């Protein structure tokens, strides 16, 4: 890693400027970037560390909505009581990324922009309907989370754009979310499959809104609209859950690799989506 230049801009504008340089890479927590540098998969000339930008790691509540700084660590997210209460699925997904040590550094911004199909927080954020706040030379723009990943390792962000924050919408009453993943061990693995579900119920417990997203079953995390539709109008009866499972299985286009076979991933994606839907429902009722 000879000749890597480390920059720690003090503002978003400075960061955007630093990214004009060829071979510059944004770093938030660094838990993916440093691994890639170590094994030679990434060879940046300049590392632009966002963490010294004021507010970039903050979590704040704004009229019921939450703004999560792109570089907020998993540990900080897990410690934020308001966020935990409003978006338990997003928080549990963020907290599943890596070990305690990795939690001390890993961020939602990094997890999304690393663009791994198996990123834990992404299905949960998509299910939650989260939006990204993106800064570039021409100012800020917003985009839904599902619009960011385009392929493994690729995003729709321009080279000189910086993901600054996530915006989680204000929670309706009777709503809840959940994220589940399957790994062979209890910790430390990359998700073989992940599923995030967010639901809103009416006072009678009937589902009025639902978003279902699955990870590690396609080149990017998928928003499975048919799976959400299967729940809407139901009270989570077996028929609706079977429909949800079928929709997820139909949407899944996994590969077989060292972490799991395509067949296994498809089956388990459906199982996890159903389980997550039920947890989300229970949370919505609580």
């Amino acid at each position, binding site marked *: *890693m*000879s*000749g*890597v*230049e*480390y920059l*720690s801009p003090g503002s978003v504008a400075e960061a955007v400027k630093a990214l004009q340089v060829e071979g510059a890479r944004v*770093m938030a927590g*660094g*838990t993916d970037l*440093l*691994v890639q*540098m*170590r*094994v030679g998969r990434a060879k*940046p000339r*300049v*590392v632009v*560390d966002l*963490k010294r930008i004021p507010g970039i790691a903050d979590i704040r509540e704004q009229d019921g909505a939450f703004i999560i700084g792109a570089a907020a*660590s998993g*540990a900080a997210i897990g410690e934020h009581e308001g966020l935990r209460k409003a978006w338990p699925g997003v928080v549990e997904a963020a907290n599943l990324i*890596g*070990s*305690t*040590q*990795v939690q*001390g*550094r890993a961020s939602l911004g990094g997890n999304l922009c690393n663009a791994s199909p198996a990123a834990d927080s992404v299905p949960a954020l998509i299910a939650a309907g989260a939006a990204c706040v993106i800064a570039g030379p021409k100012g800020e723009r917003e985009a839904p989370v599902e619009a960011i990943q385009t392929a493994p390792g690729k995003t729709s962000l321009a080279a000189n754009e910086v993901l600054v924050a996530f915006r989680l919408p204000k929670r309706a009453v009777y709503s809840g979310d959940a994220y589940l993943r399957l790994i062979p061990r*209890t*910790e*430390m693995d990359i998700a073989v499959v992940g599923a995030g579900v967010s639901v809103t119920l009416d006072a009678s417990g009937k589902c009025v809104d639902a978003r279902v997203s699955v990870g590690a079953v396609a080149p990017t995390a998928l928003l499975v609209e048919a799976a959400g539709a299967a729940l809407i109008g139901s009270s989570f009866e077996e028929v609706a859950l079977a429909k949800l499972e079928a929709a997820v299985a139909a949407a899944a286009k996994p590969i077989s690799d060292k972490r799991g076979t395509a067949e296994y991933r498809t089956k388990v994606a459906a199982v996890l989506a159903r389980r997550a839907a039920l947890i989300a429902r229970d949370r919505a009722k609580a």
Partner: protein
Amino acid sequence: MSRKVVNATVNGEPVEFLAGGGQSLLDALRDELRLTGSKEGCGTGDCGACSVIVDGRLVCACLMLAPEAEGKRIETIEGLADNGHLHPLQHQFLEHAALQCGFCTPGLLMASKALLDRNPDPTETEVRYWLAGNICRCTGYDKVVRAVMDAAADLRQEKPR
């Protein structure tokens, strides 16, 4: 190669060292500051042998760039004992024979310290999940978990809440 001067606090002492832009904190600790107690088992954040505490947060020193340490407070295994007095965790690791080869031990101790700093009375399950990022291949974790639980009890006695 562009090396920058970094000023930080390591185990309570101010230090100044030169860091390359792509150099990890672990390499800086080991090669520049000669604090070789933090170990490299993988270099990719998967084993925890390089666990250190930075501004109160447990991190893998291999997953942090050395220049990021500017202005930070870093705790390493070399600072765990207080003026030659073993920390209750160190004491209990020895009492329980919670180490065999001892290579993962510095990381396990720092991770355990970070746990007990924020949770003085963890359950066995909490200890196991907190330490999941610290691989030990020798012990099967049994004695490690017992040592951490007993050290927690020692610390609770020392400092009644």
